[in-house]
């Protein structure tokens, strides 16, 4: 075919095709003044959070990653990790690590409990926290091809006591596998060592938790250790446990995306297999760990 098409015109010399964009609908004027996205995340807030968290990440937890290159540079992926510590320290570590190393945003899914708390809920949202609703996760993964972090143990992970450390709880109802299947993205399991010791739960006050409407009300070693020194603030300070994270091989599901439902048994099997992979990786990492503090 010769001659210019609607999409291409030619320079006067007739040598180089020049791309002429097709007339699109005029862009609507959108006078935004902040960088808060539709999910509530603000890159500006993240920058501040990373600057504040960097010393803790580098010098307190001394985080070490293994296999970070398995997280893709683009495209959606669902990051799945074990969850621990009464105030979970694993979520900020994973988000900080990936954002500084890979320069990709990470959205962390969490319970609606966060949203109800003034200030905390807003900061959490600006820092990349999103309510763990299946549709939220699906849109982030499918339409926006983002990285999404989820802890399938939910509050059962951080709520367990110290004697049960590194024993993975049930992975919910395997909803995360179903979402990854629908979104057509891989699940990337991450095993985290260190979070358990950063804030060990000695006992759980069940009735108090019930009265306060919280998933758990722990008595932590940190309260006892730092309490006399820092008062109530002591409950918020983590121990400087050495963090080691291992990214496992991405799990691709051999199913078409966007199906209304997937085989229940396949979903449960995949979830269980991912749980076991993380569990085995944890045991492997613990075998070679000579000290909780030095790694």
């Amino acid at each position: 075919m010769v001659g210019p098409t609607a999409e291409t015109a030619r320079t006067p010399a007739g040598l180089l095709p020049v791309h002429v964009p097709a007339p699109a609908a005029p862009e609507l004027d959108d006078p935004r003044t902040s960088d808060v996205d539709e999910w509530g995340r603000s890159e500006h807030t993240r920058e501040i959070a990373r600057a504040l968290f960097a010393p803790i990440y580098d010098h307190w937890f001394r985080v070490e990653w293994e296999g970070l290159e398995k997280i893709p540079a683009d495209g959606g992926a669902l990051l799945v990790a074990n969850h621990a510590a009464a105030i979970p320290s694993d979520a900020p570590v994973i988000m900080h690590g990936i954002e500084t190393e890979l320069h990709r945003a990470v959205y962390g899914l969490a319970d609606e409990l966060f949203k109800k708390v003034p200030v905390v809920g807003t900061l959490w949202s600006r820092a990349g926290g999103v309510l763990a609703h299946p549709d939220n996760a699906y849109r982030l993964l499918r339409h926006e091809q983002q990285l999404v972090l989820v802890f399938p143990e939910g509050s059962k992970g951080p709520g367990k006591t110290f004697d049960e450390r590194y024993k993975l709880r049930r992975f919910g109802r395997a909803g995360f596998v179903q979402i990854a299947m629908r979104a057509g993205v891989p699940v990337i399991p991450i095993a985290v060592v260190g979070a358990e010791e950063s804030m060990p739960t000695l006992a759980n006050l069940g009735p108090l938790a019930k009265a306060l409407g919280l998933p758990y009300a722990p008595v932590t070693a940190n309260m006892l250790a730092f309490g006399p020194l820092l008062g109530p603030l002591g409950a918020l300070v983590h121990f400087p446990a050495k963090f080691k994270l291992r990214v496992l091989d991405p799990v691709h599901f051999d199913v078409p995306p966007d199906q209304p439902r997937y085989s229940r048994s396949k979903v449960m099997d995949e979830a269980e297999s991912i749980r076991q992979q993380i569990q085995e990786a944890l045991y492997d990492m613990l075998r070679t760990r000579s000290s909780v503090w030095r790694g």
Partner: protein
Amino acid sequence: MGKRVLVTGLGTFWGGRVAKALEADPEVDVIVGLDKVEPTIELERTEYVKSDENYSILSRIVEATQVDTIVHTFLVVDSTQMRARTMHEINVIGTMNLFAAATDSSVRNVVVKSSSYVYGCEPGDPVWFTEDMPRQSPPRHRVERSLTEVESYVRDFAVDNPHVAVTMLRFSNVLGPELSTPLSRLLELPAVPSIFGFDPRFQFVHEDDVVRAILFVLEHDLAGVFNVAGDGLLPWSEVAAICGKRTVPLPPIGQGLVTAALGRLGVDIPPEVGDLLRYGRGLDSARLKRAGFDYTHTSAGAVRAFIESLRLTRTVGPDPEYQYEREVEDFFRRSPAVVRRPR
């Protein structure tokens, strides 16, 4: 033969705007407007019929005028303007009578203007509501209850009358130069109330896009439920910033007491708006866009258009108010002295 349209709530902002827009459409032969109060904008050929608020004479009108399309704009979503009972009469009983009149009649198209309040506003809500998502908990506020009930009538009518194309439009928070809503009144204050520690994301739709959406579904004979909302969600603090105002945080606990105290000062924050100030709400507008509808304003654009026109009105004063005079309107419509040009 062109369309014969009946518009409910002709005296309200939406009814008037829709009737005016329909007058410009040569495809529309007849426009009949119902309301208890007189039209507030100048209309050229719309026939105004005075009725009570729950339309007890509606079936006679439908029978007499043989309308084929009903545009039901008269649903109250601003709970600060009337008592619960009146709202129930207008929304629920009015809709019930409307559908009773439309059953086994000449009506082939019904468009209902509903609101995003039917989705509720809970901490566990998804960021985006699609048309098929149910609300997360039973309706808690009277506006929500009222609209939920209305929508159930609409669904029943659609099921019972498969030959009628029933369209339900759920509008996000509407802003514009002329409309007054609980949210727009908050933004008109010297400083904008917020709830301490909460900065939820809001979505808006410009009033022009509301009228255009109603005309669009009429023109394209679209049936079904459609969300109508501008692109983008923006934090309440940014909404205030675009308006060039500061936010005044209200205490996050004891909301009943706080809003009661503010009510005394003339600042009305109905409970459904209080929820929004905590958790916000987003509507997925993809379905109507896929049908070919283009918006003229984004969420942020609607806020700016609103505040700019507010500034202008504050400086040069509002447009002179239109006063309906039956004799004058009758003269223009029916007097042999008026020379009628073909449209």
